């Protein structure tokens, strides 16, 4: 195949065409759904009954946002989400990186077995129904503590997996230097290892925030009806007869709920992208 002249012109056409194709794809695949959300959230109730792509005759986005904020008790759900998210993330990061450090450094058959057990949760689905029974027996049914425990049980595997891989790339000599100065394992872990883990802990934080903030399935089983989180609240709002087909309010809620994550993402976009990808391909 005589490719050089042909290939070159192909390449040149592609360089010209690529920005057009990319822009068109973004507009069609992302732009249309996002526009639907924003436009519908800006409409009045009568206009939003049939959610189409037309722009609202007059924008009432702010009114709809404030209406859903007060009507659906969004602040309580927001606090509920935070109350569960923060301890969960802190807990999995601390417990997970402690375990991962020792699992990465002690290369015996036993620790390899323990590692396999610890990361099996990445693959295996949690037992959502019986966990309710167990929490009832522990007196934790419907409580934030129970929910935090369940999330930690589900996402510890992810942290152990990411951090163990990362610890293996850190030279042991850094720890040894501290040890020679007489530091015990707890001090070595806190002063030497934990600061070095920062990039991988950032990645894990993002992933777990994403899962926990958006989860509705596990929350429904564990705290449904007892404690409100944003997704549970949205689920209730959208399924309630009172709000049925009130698309303007549902989409106003979608905007409120997605905004915190999108703001965080916009601020730390580059770090997040490099964090997510570095864990997966190596």
């Amino acid at each position, binding site marked *: 195949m005589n490719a050089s002249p042909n290939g070159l012109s192909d390449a040149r056409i592609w360089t010209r065409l690529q920005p057009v194709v990319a822009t068109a794809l973004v507009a069609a695949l992302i732009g249309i*759904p996002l526009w639907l959300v924003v436009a519908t959230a800006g409409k009045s109730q009568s206009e939003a009954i049939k959610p189409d792509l037309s722009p609202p005759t007059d924008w009432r986005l702010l009114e709809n946002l404030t209406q859903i904020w007060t009507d659906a008790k969004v602040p309580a759900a927001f606090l509920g989400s935070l109350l569960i998210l923060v301890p969960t993330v802190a807990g999995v990061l601390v417990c997970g990186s402690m375990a991962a450090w020792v699992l990465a450094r002690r290369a015996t058959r036993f620790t390899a077995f323990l590692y396999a057990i610890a990361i099996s949760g990445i693959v295996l689905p949690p037992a959502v129904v019986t966990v309710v029974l167990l929490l009832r027996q522990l007196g934790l049914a419907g409580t934030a503590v129970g929910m935090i425990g369940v999330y930690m049980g589900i996402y510890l595997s992810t942290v152990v997996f990411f951090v163990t891989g990362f610890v293996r790339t850190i030279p042991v000599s850094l720890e040894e230097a501290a040890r020679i100065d007489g530091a015990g394992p707890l001090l070595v872990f806190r002063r030497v290892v934990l600061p070095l883990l920062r990039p991988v802990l950032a990645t894990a934080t993002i992933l777990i925030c994403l899962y926990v903030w958006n989860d509705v399935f596990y929350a429904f089983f564990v705290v449904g009806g007892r404690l409100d989180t944003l997704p549970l609240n949205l689920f209730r709002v959208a399924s309630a007869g009172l709000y049925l087909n009130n698309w303007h309010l549902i989409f106003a809620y979608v905007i409120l709920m997605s905004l915190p994550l999108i703001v965080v993402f916009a601020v730390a976009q580059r770090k997040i*992208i490099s964090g997510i990808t*570095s864990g997966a391909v190596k």
Partner: protein
Amino acid sequence: MPTAVDTPVPDRTLPRPPSAGAGRSATRAITRRTHPLWFLAPAFAILLVFFFLPTLFNFIYAFTDWSGFKAAINPVGFDNFTDLASNGTLFRALRITIVYAVLVAVFQNLFGFLLAVLLERDTRLNRLARVFFLIPVLMSALAVGYVFQALLKPDGGLNALIGTVLSRPFDYGWLADNTWTIVVVALIHSWKWMGLSMLIYLAGLKTIPDDVIEAARIDGATRWRTFWAIRSPLLAPAVTFNVATALLGSMNGFDIVQATTGGGPARTTEILNIFIYRTFGQGLFAQATTMSLILFLLVALMAFPVIHLLRKREEVLS
């Protein structure tokens, strides 16, 4: 430095250099002290109580008549399984779940890969486009479901758009077709996660240094050939990760299906988790537990061969 197995090693001694032949047990004695096993305790305690114990309970309560209607729980043997199998629910839910998972794995990887190839160069426009494709990844799956429920209604935005293009009214019920709705829902699931697959593929494409590609080009390889012979093998780890996470994520899926179809029409999109949710809500706890156990077994049976197979392919290629 002491070499005997039981000689205590003082804390301040330098660990033995790895070149020394004897004394693996001495280094082990050191690691035992410098990396104590009790560091594992908090993580494993939580895993045990909140993950493995409920899983164990699954294997017990699936064989009982536990329900919301009475206090007593009695063993009933395989009754739950035979009931679910005899009325066809079991195999139907299994089939739907597997079809859904495979469709998602195919679509999500196809879209993610095409996007990665399209947006590979680091121009400003491409960077911006990547950020846009990550927005669905950040959104809650429930919200994504509602967006598409609105978009795909018979009188919704998509049909209006198609109608304008065809210049005649178009009112196909995307979410009301007994045969094709499962494909539509799988497409929505893939739409939500394709940005993540794209990122992973982009990172995979970047692992190859430019000078290798340049060398291949100087040797006369076409772009096509460079791609297949040099770059695609290096994508193997990314493929492993993406296929495995897409398969497992969709088998464990719930939100998108619940928010778009709720399992309908005529229960043709009722994947296992929707069934579990529905029966649990009806107080049929034993049935829900049985399906939960079946999901566990299905994922366990499917996950390990899939990961093993993909890993093996990686080794062959590298």
